[in-house]
């Protein structure tokens, strides 16, 4: 379980960790043993806590009930329960009582500070991606470092291994040289080139819009312009999802790794000089893992 790999970083950030499922204590004990899991795997046998939280997967029950042929029910089943699961009578029964999978981040008073739930059954956020988005200290893995005349950058993926349905991020930390700035969103209206992480389309990966951190306003006195820029170290996040369709899963099974290519494009200026727009090629190679269908004790 990926969460175990990130446990130390979460704990050193002062964040407690627990996972809840409807499994019996025996199933969880076997799973913890097999995967070396040390944080609490809580057994909500009977799904009462899952129900109280309001995240019980009710589609599964509807699909076994009198409205199972209702087109709306069928559509939701395809969205929230994999069709392959629903084709099997045995799996249909096992999915009843499960939650819509997701993560709550809580403050010390148990209030939700953010939540990550997937819209589609097959897609799931990685813990590292959640941490990266929340700015929780994450040690860059498989990082590529580079230096240009105007800045330094470190590019790394949230996860070095992905599988069909993985929601992950590509991060690029950029540190402009002293007195240098690069342009933030909004500066394009004044004719500047906004920094961008531009990934080439991939057959198996869907890219979300790049997320930019908050910028600062730079007063360019000669033109009396107020321009949104980055002058200090900042991180661009490119969230992405590996295609989870059965066709994609079959195609990915033939591959050992995915290479995603793109470029970091920017224009940098200091008080006196604006340098020509630059483009630095970047590529990320992610190992591919087959979906884990390993079973513990049959329920």
């Amino acid at each position, binding site marked *: 379980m990926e*969460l175990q790999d990130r446990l130390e970083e*979460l*704990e050193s*950030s*002062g*964040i*407690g*960790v*627990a*996972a*809840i*499922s*409807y*499994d019996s*204590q025996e*199933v*969880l004990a076997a799973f*913890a043993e097999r995967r070396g*899991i040390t944080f*609490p*795997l*809580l*057994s*909500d046998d009977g799904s009462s*806590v899952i129900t*109280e*939280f*309001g*995240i019980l997967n*009710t*589609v599964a029950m509807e699909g076994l009930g009198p409205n199972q042929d*209702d087109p*709306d029910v069928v559509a*939701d089943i395809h969205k929230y329960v994999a069709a392959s699961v629903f084709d099997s009578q045995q799996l249909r029964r*096992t999915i009843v009582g*499960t*939650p*819509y*999978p*997701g*993560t*709550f*981040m*809580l403050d*010390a*008073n*148990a*209030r*939700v*500070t*953010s*939540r990550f*739930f997937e819209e589609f059954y097959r897609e799931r956020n990685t813990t590292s991606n*959640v941490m990266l988005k929340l700015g929780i200290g994450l040690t860059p893995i498989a990082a590529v470092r580079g230096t240009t005349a105007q800045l330094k950058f470190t590019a790394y993926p949230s996860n070095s291994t992905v599988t069909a349905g993985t929601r992950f991020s590509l991060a690029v930390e950029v540190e402009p040289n002293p007195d240098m700035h690069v342009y933030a969103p909004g500066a394009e209206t004044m004719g500047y080139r906004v920094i961008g992480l531009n990934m080439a389309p991939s057959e198996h990966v869907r890219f979300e819009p790049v997320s930019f951190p908050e910028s600062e306003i730079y007063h360019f006195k000669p033109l009396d312009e107020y321009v949104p820029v980055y002058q200090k170290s900042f991180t661009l996040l490119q969230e992405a999802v590996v295609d989870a369709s059965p066709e994609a899963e079959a195609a990915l099974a033939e591959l050992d790794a995915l290479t995603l290519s793109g470029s970091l494009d920017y224009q940098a200026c200091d008080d006196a000089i604006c340098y020509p727009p630059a483009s630095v090629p970047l590529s990320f190679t992610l190992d591919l893992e087959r979906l884990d*269908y390993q*079973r*513990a*004790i*049959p*329920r």
Partner: protein
Amino acid sequence: MSRKPMVIVMATLIIGLTWMVYAPTSPPTRTKIDVSLLGPQVGERVPDFSLPDQNGQLHNLNSIMGPNGALLLFHRSASW
């Protein structure tokens, strides 16, 4: 003062009730599921619980909480 309005109201009620009783059992209108609206939202406190872990030790919100909060993951199952 006319009693007509009251009669109309009563008639409407009776027709309505009769329809409710005898209407064919059509499936109730169903709200499409939107997971983003389910469960505690940002700013809300989550319900407390008391559940055993893999070693039989009981946990609640307090016991899983770190000094800066907690990550609470709900997953489908460890067995499939």
